[in-house]
């Protein structure tokens, strides 16, 4: 199945979820749960917490599927953004365990290699990569680390080993450059 078809099927399933169709939610779950669980686990690095967040994400899809607008976002982007946001909120709420084993998270086995086939249109990704490549490599690295770890400026500065003010400046400048580049 090509990416456009799976995207269209997923959008349609989400529209059916808005009508309280639990089979449609099951379809969404079957096709996205491995991907979203990977996202939650990458940030939380704790299976139990990641599953709690994942459960929350699908309950939220169940209750708010009508807010999904296929004109504004791809379905997987909408779902991944929701999973990231909830994982980051969860990470903030637990406080002290923030820095727990980055290596461990990276060693997560690739149990569902095909799940990423549904993911974002390659075009968007290539565009982003092109814009990231124009940044100072250190800054681009900080942006990627921030995205994957979901940690605060403070924790990010410690991880990368630069002062907090420097990290803020790197990230803000990078975002401003990315905005210009991505808008172009």
């Amino acid at each position: 199945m090509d990416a456009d078809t799976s995207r269209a099927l997923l959008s349609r399933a989400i529209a059916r979820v808005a009508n309280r169709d639990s089979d449609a939610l099951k379809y969404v779950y079957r096709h996205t749960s491995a991907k979203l669980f990977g996202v939650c686990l990458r940030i939380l690095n704790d299976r139990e917490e990641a599953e709690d967040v994942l459960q929350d994400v699908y309950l939220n899809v169940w209750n708010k599927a009508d807010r999904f607008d296929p004109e504004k976002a791809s379905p997987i982007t909408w779902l991944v953004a929701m999973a990231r946001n909830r994982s980051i909120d969860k990470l903030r709420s637990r406080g002290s365990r923030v820095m727990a084993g980055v290596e461990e998270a990276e060693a997560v086995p690739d149990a569902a290699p095909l799940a990423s086939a549904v993911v974002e249109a390659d075009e968007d990704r290539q565009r982003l990569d092109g814009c990231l490549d124009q940044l100072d490599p250190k800054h681009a690295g900080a942006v990627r680390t921030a995205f994957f770890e979901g940690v605060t400026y403070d924790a990010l500065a410690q991880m990368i080993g630069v002062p907090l003010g420097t990290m803020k400046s790197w990230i803000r400048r990078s975002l401003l450059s990315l905005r210009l580049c991505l808008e172009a």
Partner: protein
Amino acid sequence: MTDALPPVSDEDRPLAGEYVLGVLDAAERAAVQSRIAAEPSFARAVEWWENRLTPLASDIRGVEPSAGLWPRIANLIGGASKPTLWNNARVWRGVSVGAVALAAASVAALVLTPRAPSPSVIAPAAPAPAEVALIKDPGTNQAALVATLDHATDTLILTPVAMTMPEGREPELWIIPEGQKAISLGMLPTDAPRAIPLPKDLRGAGAYTALLAVTDEPPGGAPTGVATGSVRAAGKFAKT
């Protein structure tokens, strides 16, 4: 080197991007989340960043969650159902029997054919003591509310079918008589019917041709009496 650049001023701070990237602390995230709910332009900026940055997630490998997770979710949604529309006796008291029956029939029709509520299914076959209008979400064309006009008591009954609001916003009902400004008819609950007496000069044909609209407003309603939010639903009794 770039490290020595002056800090980015607050005014240029790409806050929506920082939120999406995930570098804000808990308090800042909470503040941003309430801005998303209150400021459509800010919400759009967040959406913009989400669409641009989320493709990075394709690098994250999928991992199967436990087999027990789906049954858990299925169980939780099994107990969930649409808000009960009929359990608020107070709202219904005083409304003529015909209006209630007609509203019931129209809601039943909506529930049966939720994807395509065809007006022909809902329209009364003959002149009836009450009339029903679907107040639809302009984005999806799905009914958000059913409005029932009860001529016997000059009452408008609004029954939510699928009305959702952005977080922190509440639905306010407006009536816009032909060629005139919108008049607020007050706030609506999203999960229970509400009966609203029609303003005196709008009884009869006036209410029939007026547009009914719901906008999202801050709790308590639009502060100046003029709608500030987006139109979430609109419709009228008269067929156009």
